[in-house]
């Protein structure tokens, strides 16, 4: 079974390995070139590649498409499942081996990418957006969450393939579900803000690397106002902040301290892992039970 899995999926494995090597070399060269740079020069060097790095949240989707979607859909579409599932290896074992080995492989690939991005980020200490916690792109691409996003996409792809039983519709469903999941997590619910109750501080500025989630003004009487300060409703855009200052208001920040990074990583990883199992489990069960 291990040989069969390798033989059927070696193209994906090799292309992914090649991609990781390519990204690794690029990040290494780029990161080493930042050695000794400071200030504007460091920021300029970081910005020169940030556009490409910001595509990283889409990479797990590609893994879901090419690792997950064909896993069941290709067998069912070509009818080769009739051959594969009538051998001495039971269908349940066939599924368990494939899901286990390939799921492990994509997770490891995602983790490796995360390690490389984390290492690369350390070369840009202090640059805005080059922060693994407050920048949404970097948070999802580093640490354990990076690996689990890949596993999540793989589970979506596999489930879509098992349900639609055809490759092309499975691709479409995978893309739709993955983008919907991202959209729901980041736009509708902003789930990352909910992983822990934010700290509150009356602030000149937040502590370094903290992830600021909200801000507001506090009146001299200690009442917090969300939105515009009533005394300054008529002030112009340029004079607004001065007016707020004169009226005795202070700004208050809600933030997640930098040391919560790993706690948040594990929260997101756990969340996605549970959803992955919930998605892939029923499909695997259905495929294992359904008559050939």
């Amino acid at each position, binding site marked *: 079974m291990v040989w069969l899995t390798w033989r059927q999926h070696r193209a994906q494995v090799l292309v992914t390995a090649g991609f990781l090597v390519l990204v690794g070399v690029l990040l290494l060269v780029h990161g080493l070139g930042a050695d000794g*740079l400071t200030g504007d020069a460091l920021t*300029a060097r970081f910005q020169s590649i940030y*556009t*490409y790095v910001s595509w990283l949240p889409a990479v797990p989707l590609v893994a879901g498409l*090419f690792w997950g979607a064909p896993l069941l859909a290709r067998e069912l579409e070509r009818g080769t499942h009739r051959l594969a599932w009538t051998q001495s290896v039971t269908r349940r074992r066939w599924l368990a081996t494939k899901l286990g080995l390939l799921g492990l492989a994509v997770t490891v690939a995602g983790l490796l990418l995360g390690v490389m991005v984390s290492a690369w980020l350390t070369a840009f200490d202090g640059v805005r957006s080059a922060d693994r916690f407050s920048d*949404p792109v970097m948070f999802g691409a580093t640490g354990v969450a990076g690996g689990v996003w890949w596993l999540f996409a793989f589970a979506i792809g596999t489930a879509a393939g098992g349900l639609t039983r055809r490759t*092309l519709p499975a*691709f479409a469903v995978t893309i739709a579900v993955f983008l919907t999941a991202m*959209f729901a997590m980041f*736009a509708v619910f902003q789930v990352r803000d909910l992983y822990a109750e934010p700290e509150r501080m009356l602030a000149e500025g937040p502590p370094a690397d903290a992830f600021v989630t909200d801000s507001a003004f506090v009146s001299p009487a200690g009442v917090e106002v969300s939105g515009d300060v009533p005394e300054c409703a008529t002030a112009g855009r340029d004079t607004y902040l001065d007016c707020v200052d004169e009226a005795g208001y202070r700004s208050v920040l809600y933030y997640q301290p930098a040391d919560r990074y790993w706690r948040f990583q594990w929260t997101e990883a756990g969340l996605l892992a549970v959803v992955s199992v919930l998605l892939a489990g029923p499909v695997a069960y259905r495929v294992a039970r359904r008559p050939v």
Partner: protein
Amino acid sequence: MLWLTWRQHRAQTLVTVVLIAGAALLLVLDAVPFVLVKTLPVVPVFVGLFWGVPLLAREYERGTDRLVWTQSVPRSRWLVVKFTVLGTAVVLAGLAFGAVVLGWTASADAPVDRFSDEVFGVSGVVAGAWFLAVFTLGAASGAVLRRMLPAMAVTTAVFAGLVVGAYLARGHYAEPEVALSGAHGMAVPADALVTGTGVVGPAGDLLSWDDAMSACAGAEPVGCMRDRGYEQQYTLYQPADRYWRFQWTETGLLLVIALVLAGVTARQVVNRSR
């Protein structure tokens, strides 16, 4: 032939119409999270995957090309009709999407402007050209590889290369303007496309940050730069009013690419026997 084209591709057509309507709704409601804005340049690849690749790869993979190309309609006409009808549909979809994105960037609270890398390729007329070029890319890789999955992988990889190429090329469609730092900071106009930054040498020459820093390798950078007379900073930019000129330049380039890829496809289909 028209009926056949519609019948074989109606799923793609309907899904695309629904998705563009959905995207328009999201953009109008201004409910697009930052992470998704960042991935906007990826949109055309789906046209290649779902419109381009199946066009020929699906016929070859299933063996249906044997049926369809032995009918009264010759291969060349089959291909011309499919390319014309689907190409027109794809361009219209791209232009519609481009108009939606352009309208969204014009709204006051859009987080990016229309000239930025994230939206330039999926806004205005060039969106139609991108859709068409990636459609022909998918069709060509399907015609050459004759299997869906490898053709999809190749389309994705080449598309990523094209986007990176476009990012790097965009700064060179016209000679950039130079803004120098003064007492009031850098006077780069709003919404301009910044293509490079660095320091001005003592002779008025422009050095990129990397060059300036490597000249100072080993030394304490700030002091070394001052000693060498690198006082002033510069920014290279393309003014915002060049947007439409750049749009047409990139459209022209992409149409040439689309034409070449369509030629490759036609050659594969018409000349090569099974």
